[in-house]
Every structure is written in structure tokens, then in C-alpha cells.
């Protein structure tokens, strides 16, 4: 335990010195079983009605691994002075945990999601501020619906360095994004997760296996899929609608831009003609007026939302495909079962 404290403090100093580099220092995430169960429990208790439950991850960094050893949940934003409560709450929690020798190093945060819809502006902003402050931080996305279907769905994401740069400069125009050459696939990078238990907890698990009944629910082999599929597709359709709206906006913008170009061109031509005529008549030519003031360029629409929507759609599609492939497998198994009757 003493050695763990040392690595904790040394990694603290280590992290503050490497906050300048933008490489991805985290190749793997190691989570303790305790954290997994705490996240599951938190959603179970709080998240039945509302959308998301959030909390903070604590741990330390070892080589290129991020070890998450504990976590605590955030209360919901029900009161008016939510901001003050949050910071205060966090500080107090960390202080208290330090007393009992729990790693109090902030390494990320977690959030629950419904059907995979988590790619939003809020998430981006939060993760950006986290990653800016702490280099190795990640966001854990827990999908309770998928988990209740039979297998734990926990993913860890970080923002790619390219996206970090863009967020820093807050340059969301099309030109800015083109410069950085970002597509929706390069927004988040997923970090592989490994779950680890200490020996003592393994002993505990042996105990539990003796005492508890065999789980009689095999949700993973459930054949009914239409409910989940419908909801996923509904969300997908909404997103696609949003996307088409954004595209329409962009199209009108580019149309306006080209119209304006044409107008500018015409104006210049007329000017030149007039100037030519005046010269032939021997008069002074008209002064060159500032064109840019006359033709104000239209505002380019911010592309960040479009990027997020595209990323979200991509995520939905991935989830749907995974779901359908699983179901196809199950259907074929059912066919085999029936074939013997």
C-alpha cells in the first residue's frame, strides 16, 4: 500500500510535466471490478427516470496504462445552485477519500447512455476540459440497456489530438475543419478496457459463488429483438433528420456564397466598363471602392454540430449492426433447435 501511494504521487508530478505533449499516452485502461459494480449500481438507483447519470473516476497512471481504482457518483442537478454544490461536493469527497487512502487522483468521468446516444456537445466540452487539465483522462460510457441484454457494455473514449487542437482554437468553420482534415471517424478514439481484480476480491468471489444461486436469466439468448431495434432505428432516424437540416443549411450557405461571388464579379466588370468609358471621355475614373464592405460575406455555419451528428449516426449504425449480427446468430441457433423436432 505504501508503494502504491508513492506511485500515485510520482505519477502526479509526472503528469503535470507531460501535459504539454498531445500524444495519446494511454494505450489501455485497467478497471477494478469494484468500479464496474459501482457504476452499475449507480445507474440502477438513479437513472430509471432521467437520462444520464454521471460520476467521477479516480485512479492513477502506470506506464501507458490508466488504472481506475475507484469512483463516486454525482448527484443529479435538481437544485438551483447546482454549480456550487458540484464543486463543493467533489472537493469534499476527494478529501474524505484521501483520509482512507483511496487514490484521489482525478482521471476521468463516466456517463450512462441510452441506446448509444452520447455524442453530444456537452460530452465534447466536458471531455475537452478534462483532457486539457489532465492528459490521460477518459470518459467511460456505460450502456445499461445493452448490459441488461446479457453482456457488460462499457467503453472508454478519448478525444483525438486533432480534435483537441480544434477545440482549443474554437475554430469550427468549414475551412478550419478542412485544414485539420477531420472526419467524424477521427473524433473519438476508443481505448481497450481490461478488468482486473485483486487477490482478496477473488477470494470473495469464490465465497459468493458458493452462496448465491445460479443466474437463471439468460438474457443474451433472448430472441425478441423488435423492441430494441425499433427504438434504435427511431433515434437513428431523428439524427438523420437533424443531419439533413444541417446539410440544407450548408447548402444555402454555399449557394449564397457563390451568388455573392457572382455579384462581386459583375460589379467589378461594370466598374471596369465604366472606367473604360470614362477614360475614353477623358474623365477621372471612379475610385475603387472597397468591395468587401459592400458585399458582406455570409456567415459560414459552424460545422461542429454536423460533425457530432455524423459521429452519433455512425455510432448508432455500429450498434445496430452489432445487434443484428447477434440476433441472426440466435435465430440460426433456434432453427437448429427446431430442426430436431
Amino acid at each position, binding site marked *: 500500500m505504501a508503494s502504491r501511494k508513492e506511485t500515485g504521487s510520482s505519477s502526479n508530478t509526472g503528469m503535470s510535466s507531460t501535459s504539454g505533449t498531445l500524444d495519446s499516452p494511454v494505450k489501455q485502461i485497467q478497471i477494478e*471490478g469494484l468500479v464496474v*459494480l459501482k457504476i452499475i449500481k449507480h445507474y440502477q438507483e438513479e437513472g430509471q427516470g432521467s437520462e444520464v447519470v454521471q460520476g467521477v473516476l479516480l485512479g492513477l497512471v502506470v506506464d501507458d496504462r490508466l488504472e481506475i481504482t475507484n469512483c463516486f457518483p454525482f448527484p443529479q442537478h435538481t437544485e438551483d445552485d447546482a454549480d456550487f454544490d458540484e464543486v463543493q461536493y467533489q472537493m469534499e469527497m476527494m478529501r474524505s477519500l484521501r483520509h482512507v487512502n483511496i487514490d484521489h487522483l482525478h482521471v476521468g468521468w463516466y456517463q450512462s447512455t441510452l441506446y448509444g446516444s452520447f455524442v453530444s456537445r456537452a460530452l465534447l466540452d466536458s471531455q475537452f476540459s478534462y483532457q486539457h487539465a489532465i492528459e490521460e483522462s477518459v470518459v467511460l460510457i456505460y450502456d445499461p440497456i445493452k448490459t441488461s441484454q446479457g453482456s457488460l457494455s462499457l467503453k472508454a473514449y478519448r478525444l483525438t489530438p486533432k480534435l483537441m487542437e480544434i477545440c482549443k482554437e474554437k475554430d469550427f468553420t468549414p475551412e478550419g475543419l478542412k485544414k485539420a482534415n477531420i472526419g*467524424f471517424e477521427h473524433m473519438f478514439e476508443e481505448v481497450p478496457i481490461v478488468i482486473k481484480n485483486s487477490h482478496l*476480491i477473488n477470494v470473495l468471489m469464490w465465497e*459468493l459463488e458458493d452462496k448465491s444461486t445460479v443466474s437463471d*436469466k439468460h438474457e443474451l439468448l433472448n430472441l425478441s429483438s423488435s423492441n430494441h431495434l425499433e427504438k434504435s432505428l427511431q433515434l437513428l432516424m431523428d439524427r438523420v433528420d437533424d443531419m439533413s437540416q444541417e446539410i440544407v443549411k450548408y447548402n444555402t450557405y454555399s449557394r449564397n456564397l457563390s451568388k455573392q461571388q457572382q455579384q462581386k464579379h459583375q460589379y467589378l466588370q461594370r466598374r471596369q466598363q465604366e472606367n473604360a468609358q470614362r477614360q475614353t471621355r477623358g474623365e477621372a475614373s471612379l475610385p475603387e471602392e472597397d468591395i468587401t464592405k459592400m458585399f458582406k460575406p455570409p456567415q459560414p455555419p459552424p460545422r461542429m454540430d454536423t460533425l457530432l451528428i455524423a459521429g452519433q449516426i455512425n455510432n448508432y*449504425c455500429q450498434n445496430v449492426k452489432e445487434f443484428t449480427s447477434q440476433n441472426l*446468430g440466435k435465430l440460426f441457433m433456434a432453427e437448429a433447435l427446431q430442426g430436431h423436432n
Partner: protein
Amino acid sequence: FSSLFHHCLSLYHPSISDSYERRNEGASRVIGTILGTIDKHSIEVTNCFSVPHNESEDEVAVDMEFAKNMYELHKRVSPTEVIVGWYATGFDITEHSVLIHEYYSREATNPIHLTVDTALQSGKMNIRAYVSAQMGVPGKTVGVMFTPLSVKYVYYDTERIGVDLLQRIRLATNRTKGLTSDLSQVGGAAARVQDMLATVLAYIEDVLSGKVTADNSVGRFLMDLVNKVPTISAEDFENMLNSNINDLLMVTYLSNLTQAQIALNEKLLLL
């Protein structure tokens, strides 16, 4: 209280073990508060946190301020939880436990005391629960006796899945395991069912060959099992199967199409 449910056991027992592992040098055991909800005759334990304390031969000091603070913080997140008792690692109940128990009886009516044997004194990690009862001659020396309670473990569904995952990790070498995805999960679940079927089949073989006497209740369960496979005419089944497969294939096709569309959109924009 006649019985005690350990709800969310899987959550807080690793928490207790974890606090034990992180204890200060020289401390032999760890204590903490347990939170939960109280029903008529049973208590559900849902959460816990450890409390720093110092223990020596003569005296014991518990950081009560800390305990109160932590409880307030926890209450903000889950307002339904109340302090239902306290836990301690270790095998026996010492005299100090009585003092600590007294403190907790100020916080909660009739608190429970939980012992988790992390030092594995009896070869296993025993988890026991007690409630205090007065004993002795009233008016004269009064003592406190700890009477044991029955403990049952209850899980949520999703939690069950988490616990199963941890169980599997325990069997893996190196105590680590990644998360699987896609068809491998379905394969895993099917393999588990297959294992169970193999066990059942072995039992039936034994009964048939006379090695084991037949048990009627088990026989009835087996009949239920066999009858659960629904008998549908082959045609109907074909139709159902085909329509389901068609739905899934269509959805896959549509999602692939959407992905191609947005990828194309990106490429066009970045021209």
C-alpha cells in the same frame, strides 16, 4: 430483525476488501459505515464507506466527524439510504466493537454489525451479521450480546451480469480479462447453456443406468424443460424465421447505407 438481506452485496464487499488492502500501516482492521434501507423485518444493505479509526489495547478512537460528513455526501446522491450499521474486518468481536456499536446506535435504531473475515482466519472469507441485545441482570451488570442474523444475497439483473463477469475474471490467468463483443458473446452464452445441458444429461444417464436413484421433483423439472421447446409446425417456423431474418438484414443494409452516406458527405465537404 429476523433476517438481513445483502442487496448489492457484490458492490460493497469489494469495497470493504479494498479498504482493507489500503489500510494504514499498523492497523489491524478497518471499520466503516454501512448504508441501506430498512423494511419491516429485513434490512437491505446497499452501500458502505470506510471510516478512519485508531485502535490500540486500551482505547479506540473513531473519526465521527468524517463519518457524518461522508454520510451527508452520500445522501445527496441517494437520498433513500440511511445508516443501518457498521462493518469491521476481522474474525471476532472485541470489546472495542461494543463501544463502536454504541456510537452507531446513536445514529441508527438498532444498528447491525457486520464482520468480514479478510484475514481468512478460518480458511474462508466469512461474512456474518449481528444485532446487539441486552443481557445480564437488569439494574446490575448489564452487558451486550451480539446475536447473529441470517444473511441472503440478492442481485439486480445488470449487477448479476457484472458479477458474472467478475467471476469469469477470477478464473482467467493473470487476473485480467478484456471485454468481449459481438458474436463471441452469444457463443459464450450458448457454451454455458451447453455445459448445463451436459450436466443434466450426465445425471439422466446415471439415473437410467441405476447408479443414482431417480428423484421425482427433478424428473418433473426435466419434463418442464423438454416441453418448453415450443412445437410449431415446420412451415410456420420457416415463415417466422424468414421474416425475422429479412427484418434484420434490411436493418443491417440500411445502417450500412447510412454510414456510407455520411462518409461520402464528409469526403465531399473536405474537397
